[in-house]
């Protein structure tokens, strides 16, 4: 176990998070004075080093036997009050290792990409500071050994997301989108905090290991407490992972720089919810009710977001809705007990969605900032490498074998069919169909067909620089190969992650689920899902390549539905009318009526009344001696009468 230095890399797990932190600090404090290239190197090196350490950690972990692949390193007591202890410590187990590899790996590529992409920006150093800070927070999130520390990362990534969405703060829509993201996330955090409180009150600890050990003994399956805890946690996950009903912030988040969308709003942060659900799978399995809720929400979101994606014209927004939809898939899997499948899809999704985003970034970069697909087209010849990688990504997400998305999505559909019901399978299948359609719609509108670019743009269109292309290629390779991690029957990832599920030994395990499925069913399912994907592609081809007038005709015929979908079912407007406006109105009433008129009015009235009394009383002082004498006499008489009568 020990290497020649006498320590294991597990002990050095702290460095995984230290490097990005160092990067943040260096760029944050000195970035203004450093040259752009140094800033870029520092930023990338921080993540790169972190990735390398993570790799070694993985290797060290693999040396251990599967049951012992849990390593905790505690640094200091963060909060200690009475019996409450929150210890700042990191936990390495297969799940977190997978996550840190994804985060640092994909993160590294996106950092590299950003050097080229953000080169023109004045606030280059600020960008890299935020990006490093984000990675740092994300690593804390996944490495945390207790709920509260996880919450630090949880909020930390939210903060960075806020900062990065609003990176171009002079744009009003950008800063507003950042704010929206933070606030909607806070709604989710509300649930998360309450969940932590309830966990502590129930278990007397918030340490992952202890809680998960204690849970099966303390809570019966289906108990209210278990359901409450998991539901509250899920509220947090819904907020962070942009599920119904809290998904609205994610499409808006596309206001941020594209690499940010790739890293935060596709590959890593938004999947934190899935990670959290998987992390707490022991709790979730105790509450079948919650599981159903998770599955329903996941499935519904998958379908709902995909439907919106059908008609969007902004290239990044289509991808955003697709992200929402894909995360819905992950939750669907988790909700049906396929935690590992969820993680598997998370990983593959990280690859191909990052690829797609970066590819779209390359397009946007090449077009000088244009994001509207209706003003693109025929980019194939201008940007060949981008096109190829993008095409791979599209195939992957559409679920064409043998690309990464195929395996993971297929496994989810299989899960839905075997564990859930036809209903869930249907949800997933239709969503898959829609996905294939809108992704190819995107591809066709952007790269194929006739050029609809303006002259000025067309002159400047160019293939992106190497720092942009390199990550695209790497990610494309990953998108091709990533699926084999979970190749049916010899799933590496299944085996690796199995100990995490069900805490390994309580017989509630849902790990290794695909073993029970007959290969017949499996292969027929594969066939069906591939068929669905192909149907989607064909429809897209018909509508956008061979008969380009068709979309317009359909849109006209189903004008009502089209409009509703185009306007994203008016959900933003509904929220505005039901939550935002009434709150503001109520606040205004509270302020202008309750505070100023009633409470302060009362206070001032007391004051004014006193002055009024004073003004009235002073009038008795007439200045006339005879009146004074009269008051003396009257007073005297009253005193005498009282003293005789009553006393």
């Amino acid at each position, binding site marked *: 176990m020990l290497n020649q230095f006498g320590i294991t890399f597990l002990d050095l797990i702290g460095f995984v998070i230290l490097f990005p932190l160092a990067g943040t600090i260096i760029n944050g404090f000195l970035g203004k004075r450093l040259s752009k290239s140094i800033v870029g190197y520092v930023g990338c090196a921080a993540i790169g080093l972190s990735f390398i350490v993570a790799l070694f950690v993985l290797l060290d972990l693999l040396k251990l036997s599967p049951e012992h692949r849990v390593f905790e390193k505690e640094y200091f007591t963060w909060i200690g009050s009475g019996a409450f202890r929150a210890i700042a410590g990191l936990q390495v187990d297969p799940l977190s290792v997978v996550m840190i590899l994804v985060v640092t790996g994909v993160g590294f590529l996106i950092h590299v990409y950003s050097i080229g992409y953000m080169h023109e920006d004045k606030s280059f150093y600020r960008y890299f500071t935020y990006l490093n800070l984000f990675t740092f927070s994300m690593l804390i999130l996944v490495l945390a050994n207790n709920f509260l520390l996880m919450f630090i990362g949880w909020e930390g990534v939210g903060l960075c997301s806020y900062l990065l969405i609003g990176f171009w703060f002079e744009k009003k829509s950008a800063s507003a989108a950042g704010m929206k993201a933070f606030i909607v996330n806070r709604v989710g955090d509300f649930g998360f905090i309450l969940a932590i409180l309830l966990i502590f009150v129930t278990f007397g600890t918030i340490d992952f290991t202890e809680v998960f050990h204690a849970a099966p003994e303390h809570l019966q399956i289906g108990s209210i407490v278990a359901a409450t805890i998991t539901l509250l946690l899920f509220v947090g996950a819904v907020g962070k992972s942009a599920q119904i009903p809290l998904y609205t912030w994610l499409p808006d988040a596309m206001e941020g720089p594209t690499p940010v969308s790739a890293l935060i709003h596709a590959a890593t942060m938004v999947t934190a919810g899935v990670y959290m659900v998987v992390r707490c799978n022991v709790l979730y399995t105790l509450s079948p009710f919650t599981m159903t809720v998770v599955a329903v929400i996941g499935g519904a979101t998958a379908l709902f977001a995909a439907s919106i994606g059908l008609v969007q014209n902004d290239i990044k927004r289509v991808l955003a809705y697709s992200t929402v939809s894909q995360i819905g898939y992950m939750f669907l899997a988790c909700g049906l007990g396929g935690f590992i499948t969820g993680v598997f899809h998370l990983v593959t999704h990280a690859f191909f969605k990052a690829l797609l985003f970066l590819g779209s970034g390359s397009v946007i970069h090449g077009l000088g900032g244009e994001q509207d697909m209706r003003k693109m087209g025929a980019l194939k010849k201008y940007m060949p490498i981008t096109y190829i990688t993008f095409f791979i990504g599209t195939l992957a997400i559409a679920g064409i074998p043998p690309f990464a998305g195929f395996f993971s999505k297929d496994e989810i559909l299989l899960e839905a069919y075997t564990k859930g019901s036809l209903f869930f399978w249907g949800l997933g299948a239709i969503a898959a169909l829609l996905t294939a359609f809108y992704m190819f719609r995107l591809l066709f509108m952007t790269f194929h067909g006739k050029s609809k670019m303006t002259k000025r743009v067309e002159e400047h269109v160019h293939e992106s620089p190497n720092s942009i292309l390199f990550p695209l290629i790497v990610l494309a390779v990953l998108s091709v190969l990533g699926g084999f991690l979970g190749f049916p029957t010899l799933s590496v990832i299944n085996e690796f992650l199995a100990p995490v599920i069900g805490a390994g030994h309580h017989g509630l395990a849902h790990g290794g689920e695909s073993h029970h499925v007959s290969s017949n069913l499996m292969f027929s399912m594969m066939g069906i899902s591939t068929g669905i994907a192909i149907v989607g592609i064909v429809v897209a081809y018909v509508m956008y390549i061979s008969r380009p007038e068709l979309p317009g005709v359909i849109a006209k015929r189903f004008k009502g539905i089209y409009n509703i979908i185009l306007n994203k079912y008016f959900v933003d407007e509904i929220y505005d009318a039901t939550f935002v406006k009434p709150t503001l109105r109520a606040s205004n009433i509270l302020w202008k009526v309750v505070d100023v008129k009633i409470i302060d009015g009362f206070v001032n009235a007391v004051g004014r009344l006193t002055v009024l009394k004073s003004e009235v009383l002073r009038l008795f*002082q007439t200045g006339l001696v005879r009146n004074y*004498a009269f008051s003396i*006499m009257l007073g005297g008489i009253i005193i005498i009468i009282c003293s005789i009568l009553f006393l």
Partner: protein
Amino acid sequence: MEVPLTWYLVLSGILFSIGAVGVLINRNALVIFMCIELMLNAVNLAFVTFSRQQNSMDGQIFVFFIMTVAAAEAVVGLAIIIALFRNKATINVDDINIMKW
């Protein structure tokens, strides 16, 4: 026939009341002052009566002091009234109300 002591007291009370009411209803500062003198004399009458009733000299001695004090008050009072009259040419107390409220 001897007049009962109570009658003196009643007389004293009546005198006192006349004086007090006089203070309240008169406007002339001098008349008001005279009414006050009347009140003091009513007190004197009461003192003498009580002195008689109690068989002690204290009350009568008190009367002397009251008379002396009343004389002193008269001196001061008249001086004040004159001073005012020199400035304002009126001794109507209802006109003397620059200071009020």
